[in-house]
């Protein structure tokens, strides 16, 4: 079997060399399977612990690449992309003998086999003793994916084991190194929004804080603008982080925020839910005792559904609702659509560069507090709406004009899916 493996490289393997760094892309397909080999369990950790640690290690790579990893306990061994196992001294038919406790603790083979020296004292992530199996596994998986050793403080691919640092995560440079081989993560979002919270600091002053969220299907990410990455460990299930709202494919989110009002609404299909920020759950009923979800048409007369997206303009106190190639401006005080609407998207938000425009069916209209701008997302691209600062610098710019499109993944980095089986860890 091993001889055949060497002679007949698996169809999905690919030996694309990548410039001078010694890194070579090893796989061409997006979903890779792995398995902890049955006859090669470690004697130091329970099998479930070992499998959980490897599952997390693969997830950590999945969180920063377009790759997904799935444990496969059924397929014939030769069809499993990455096989892991523990052994001592001469092990698993491997030509590279382990040396006992100390020095060499693991190695990875080009064809996707990873061996761990069971003479080493491997420990789970919760321990600060011995050698972290998670850290070694992430390192060896990096090799199997095509990364060489990298002599850079902070890199997971350093050849020597670095005892547990405060946070063990893949840093910016390691992410760019692997993305040079496999590309960056792309994909459309259902909604993107900044969640506002009001808090009091130690002096009793009211502080306004925001967090950025991206939703897709049944999961979401919190995006840390100042760190140029998502929160470690995301994405997670909507079900886990939000209570009482639809658990997938939400159409729109709107936060009506004025001096007197603070109302947050989620829209899906022909219904909407109001969310209580303090209690962190959807309200069960409105002020008149009518239960949520309620019909969009009742609360927002004249607004079609299902919606593509929506956003609230605090300055004008208008909600802009989007559906196909039309946009509706809804006055929250008079509770009605402005007379001059609906308008064509191209009319209300004209392209600055001719024909560089989403035209219809935008995925999300997102006001970003980090960038003080509105962005229209569609597929992998975004269009930035002209804001006041742009107008001051270039008075010729049309109001609400759209700058030419750019790539979402070049502004919001490493927003990556993980395999559905690893969504809940």
């Amino acid at each position, binding site marked *: 079997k091993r001889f055949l493996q*060497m002679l007949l490289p698996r169809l999905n393997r690919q030996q694309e060399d990548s410039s001078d760094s010694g890194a070579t892309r090893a796989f061409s397909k997006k979903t890779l399977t792995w398995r902890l080999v049955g006859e090669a369990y470690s004697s130091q950790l329970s099998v479930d612990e070992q499998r959980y640690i490897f599952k997390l290690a693969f997830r950590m790579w999945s969180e920063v690449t377009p790759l997904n990893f799935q444990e496969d306990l059924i397929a014939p061994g030769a069809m499993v992309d990455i096989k892991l196992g523990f052994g001592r001294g001469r092990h698993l038919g491997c030509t*590279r003998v382990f*040396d006992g406790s100390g020095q060499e603790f693991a190695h990875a*083979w080009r064809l996707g086999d990873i061996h761990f020296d069971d003479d080493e004292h491997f420990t789970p992530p919760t321990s600060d003793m011995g050698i972290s199996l998670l850290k070694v596994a992430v390192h060896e998986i990096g090799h199997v994916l*095509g990364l060489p050793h990298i002599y*850079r403080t902070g890199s997971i691919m350093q050849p*020597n*084991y670095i005892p547990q640092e405060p946070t063990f995560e893949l840093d910016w440079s390691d992410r760019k190194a692997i993305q040079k081989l496999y590309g960056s993560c792309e994909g459309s979002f259902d909604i993107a929004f900044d969640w506002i919270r009001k808090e009091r600091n130690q002096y009793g002053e009211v502080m306004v804080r925001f967090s950025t969220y991206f939703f897709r299907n049944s999961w979401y990410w919190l995006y840390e603008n100042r760190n140029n990455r998502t929160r470690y460990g995301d994405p997670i299930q909507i079900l886990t982080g939000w209570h009482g709202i639809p658990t997938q494919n939400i159409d729109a989110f709107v936060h009506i925020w004025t001096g007197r009002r603070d109302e947050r609404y989620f829209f899906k299909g022909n219904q909407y839910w109001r969310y209580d920020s303090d209690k962190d759950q959807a309200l069960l009923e409105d002020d008149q005792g009518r239960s949520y979800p309620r019909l969009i048409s009742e609360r927002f007369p004249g607004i079609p559904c299902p919606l593509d997206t929506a956003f609230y303009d605090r300055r004008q106190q208008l909600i802009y609702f989007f559906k196909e190639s039309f946009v509706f401006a809804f006055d929250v005080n008079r509770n009605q659509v402005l007379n001059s609407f609906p308008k064509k998207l191209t009319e209300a938000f004209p392209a600055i560069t001719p024909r560089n425009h989403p035209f219809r069916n935008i995925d999300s209209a997102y006001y970003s507090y980090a960038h003080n701008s509105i962005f229209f997302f569609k597929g992998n691209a975004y269009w930035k709406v002209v804001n006041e600062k742009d107008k001051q610098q270039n008075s010729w710019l049309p109001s609400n004009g759209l700058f030419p499109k750019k790539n979402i993944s070049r502004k919001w980095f490493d927003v990556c899916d993980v395999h559905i089986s690893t969504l809940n860890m």
Partner: protein
Amino acid sequence: EVLFHSRDRSDLELSPLHQARPIADLQAAQRFLSRYGWSAVSSARSPNLKRTTEATAGITLAEAIRRFQKANALPVSGKLDTATLVAMNKPRCGVPDTQVPPQASSSTPPAPSTRLGLQPRARP
């Protein structure tokens, strides 16, 4: 099959038999440098193990030691000094060290300057 008897796992302590032999002399160092690719002529080497034999030593031991010292930010003497031996004995991955990629690491882009922001740290 390795059996363990003590409830407090004290027998998990590895018997000396399984200890890796420390690298303490020139011969052991030469084996180390060869095993991890420092003695090989710098050709395009794979980021993980290949099943073909490595290119045989084409450079002097001193040169191999210098390369290893440079990559590990040690004083580059070409001699097997204590610091170099310590570095060689550190726990490490068994994959050879391919040519040292250029140090230039892709710099992080400037983050948006807005002060507002709630940035939780740890992985939930």
